[in-house]
C-alpha cells in the first residue's frame, strides 16, 4: 500500500504553477523554487494517503460506529442477525444514566485516575529533583531501575504486584506483619494495590521527562538568582517551576489520559473488576457490559461518555499549548 504513492508522484502535474499557497514560506520564495519544480500540489497528499486511509478506516470510522451503536438496540439477538436493529434515540443513555452503578463507576474512575495522576506526578517530580542532586553512579542505578519498571508490560506488572501482595505467599504482608490480609478483598485496599502498580510503571516517564527539563535550564539563570540572594525554595518557586511549566503540562495531561483509561491493571489485578464489581472503572465496565453480557449498545454509550471526557481534556491541552505560543 505504501509503495503506490511514490511511483505516481514522479510525473509532474500540470497545475503546479498555480499551486503555491500563501503562507509564511511565500515570503522567501527564491530558496523554495527548485524544490517546487519537481513536485506538485498533490505530492504531500500522496505521502499522506496511506496514513489517512489507515486512520480513516480504523479510527474515524470506528468512532462513527461507536456513536451509531450507542443509539441502537444492539444485543446478542441483533448481532447474530436474528432480530432487526432498531433506533433507540437516547434510550441507551437514559438507561445508563438511570443506573446508579454507572454514576458510582464514573465517580470511582475520576477519583482513581486523579489519585493516580497526583501520586505519579509527586513521585516522578520528587525523584527528578533528587536525580539532579546526586552523582553519576547512583543516578544510573535509579535510571536503570525506573527504565525497568517503565518497560514492564502492564499484564506482567499486574501479575507481579498481585503476587507481591498475595496473602499467602507474598513477601509484602510478611514484612509488614499483615498476616493473611487480602488486599483484593476490600474495595479501597484493592484500588490502592492497583494504584501502587500504576504509579510504579508510570512515574519513570514523568521522572525522565522532568529531569530532562531541569537539566535544560541554563545554570547561569540559577546562579544569577542565587547571587541575588534567593533561597533554594525561592529559586525553585520563581525560576525553575515557571520554566518547567510546559513540560509539567505535557506530563500531567499524558498522565490524566493514561490513568483515566486504565484497563489491564484493573482487569488482571482485581479479576475483572473486583468482588461484585466494586473496583470497576469505565473501561472495564464498558468491556463487561459489551462482551460479558452482550449489551453492546450500553457498552458503546459508556465508550462515548469516555471519549467525550477525554476530548474535553484534549481541548484544554490544546488551549494550553496554544497559549504558550507553540507553532504547529
Amino acid at each position: 500500500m505504501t509503495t503506490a504513492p511514490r511511483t505516481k508522484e514522479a510525473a509532474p502535474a500540470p497545475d503546479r504553477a498555480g499551486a503555491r499557497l500563501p503562507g509564511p514560506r511565500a515570503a522567501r520564495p527564491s530558496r523554495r523554487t527548485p524544490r517546487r519544480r519537481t513536485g506538485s500540489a498533490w505530492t504531500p497528499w500522496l505521502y499522506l494517503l496511506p496514513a489517512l486511509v489507515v486512520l480513516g478506516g480504523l479510527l474515524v470510522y470506528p468512532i462513527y460506529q461507536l456513536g451509531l451503536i450507542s443509539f441502537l438496540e444492539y444485543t446478542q439477538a441483533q448481532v447474530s442477525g436474528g432480530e432487526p436493529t432498531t433506533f433507540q434515540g437516547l434510550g441507551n443513555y437514559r438507561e445508563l444514566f438511570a443506573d446508579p452503578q454507572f454514576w458510582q463507576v464514573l465517580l470511582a474512575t475520576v477519583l482513581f485516575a486523579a489519585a493516580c495522576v497526583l501520586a505519579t506526578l509527586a513521585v516522578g517530580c520528587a525523584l527528578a529533583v533528587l536525580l539532579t542532586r546526586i552523582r553519576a553512579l547512583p543516578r544510573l542505578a535509579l535510571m536503570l531501575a525506573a527504565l525497568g519498571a517503565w518497560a514492564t508490560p502492564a499484564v506482567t506488572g499486574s501479575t507481579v504486584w498481585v503476587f507481591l501482595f498475595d496473602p499467602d505467599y507474598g513477601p509484602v504482608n510478611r514484612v509488614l506483619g499483615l498476616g493473611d490480609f487480602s488486599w483484593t478483598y476490600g474495595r479501597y485496599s484493592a484500588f490502592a494495590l492497583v494504584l501502587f502498580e500504576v504509579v510504579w510503571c508510570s512515574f519513570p516517564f514523568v521522572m525522565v521527562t522532568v529531569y530532562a527539563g531541569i537539566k535544560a535550564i541554563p545554570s547561569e539563570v540559577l546562579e544569577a538568582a542565587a547571587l541575588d540572594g534567593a533561597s533554594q525554595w525561592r529559586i525553585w518557586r520563581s525560576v525553575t517551576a515557571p520554566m518547567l511549566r510546559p513540560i509539567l503540562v505535557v506530563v500531567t495531561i499524558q498522565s490524566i489520559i493514561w490513568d483515566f483509561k486504565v484497563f489491564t491493571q484493573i482487569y488482571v489485578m482485581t479479576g475483572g473488576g473486583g468482588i461484585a464489581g466494586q473496583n470497576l472503572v469505565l473501561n472495564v465496565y464498558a468491556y463487561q457490559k459489551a462482551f460479558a453480557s452482550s449489551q453492546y449498545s450500553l457498552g458503546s454509550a459508556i465508550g462515548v461518555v469516555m471519549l467525550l471526557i477525554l476530548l474535553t481534556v484534549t481541548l484544554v491541552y490544546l488551549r494550553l499549548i496554544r497559549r504558550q505560543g507553540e507553532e504547529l
Partner: protein
Amino acid sequence: MSSTGFRIRIRRPGRLAAEAAALLVAAAVAFPLYWMVLSAFKPAGEVQSTNPRPWTLSPSLDSFRRVFEQQEFGRYFLNSLVVASAVVLASAVIAFLAATAVTRFRFRFRTTLLIMFLVAQMVPIEALTIPLFFLMRDFGQLNTLGSLILPHIAFSLPFAIWMLRGFVKAVPEALEEQAMIDGAGRTRFLWQILFPLVFPGLVATSVFSFISTWNDFLFAKSFLISDTSQSTLPMALLVFFKPDENDWGGIMAGSTVMTIPVLVFFVLVQRRLVSGLGGAVKD
C-alpha cells in the same frame, strides 16, 4: 555534573543522604522485577511457601518447562513477535511518509491535519473495542493476528507522525536542494537520503509502537475469542490463574519470558528513546 555545579553546592552529608535515598528507591523500584525473576527460578515448593525468602539455593527450570511445554509459550511468543514487528514496520514507513508531508510541504489543511493527529493520540482506543470487534468480524479477521495488527498500526500512527516531525524537520533543506541539483528525483531523495537520516528517530518511535503492541491485552482478549493457537503472550499468561490455586511459578516464568525481551530492547535503545522523547516534548 560540572555544568550544574551551582546546584550541588550542598554540604556533603546532604548529598550522601540524597544518594542513599536514591539507591534505596532504586532497589524498591527494581524489587518487583527481581521478585518476578527469582520466583520464576524457584522450585515449586519455595514459590508456594508461606515464608518466602528473597533468594533461592536450588534454582530450577521447572516453571519455564511448564510454560513452554504445557502451554506452548513458544508459539504465543512468536505470535506476539509477528504482530509487534508487523506493526512496527508498517507504521514506521507510513508515519515517515506522513511526517515528511507535514514538515516539508506547505499546503491547505496542514495545520488542521496536525491538530487532528494530536487529537487522535488522545482517543481512548479502549472505547473503540466494540466497533472494531464488529469491523473485524465483518472482514473475517476475528481470531487472526490481523485483527491485532491493523488496529495497532492505526493507533501508533498519530504519535509516530507527531514524534517523527521533529526528526524530519532537523534535516536541512539545503541537502534536499543539493540532491535535486545532483539529479536525484524526489523518490530517490526520500528513500536514499532522507530515510537514513531520519532513521534514529524511527527507532525511538518504533519503541513506542512495539511496546504498546507487545503489551496489548484488551484487543487480544476481545478479538481472539476461540482460537487459542492465535493467542499472544498477555492472554496466554492468564491460563495460569485458576479459581482454586494460582500457579504462581508458571505466572512468574511466563511474565519473565514476556518482560525480558522488552527490557533488553529498552536498555539497548534508551539513549535514543530519551533524546527522542526530549525532542518530541520540546518540539
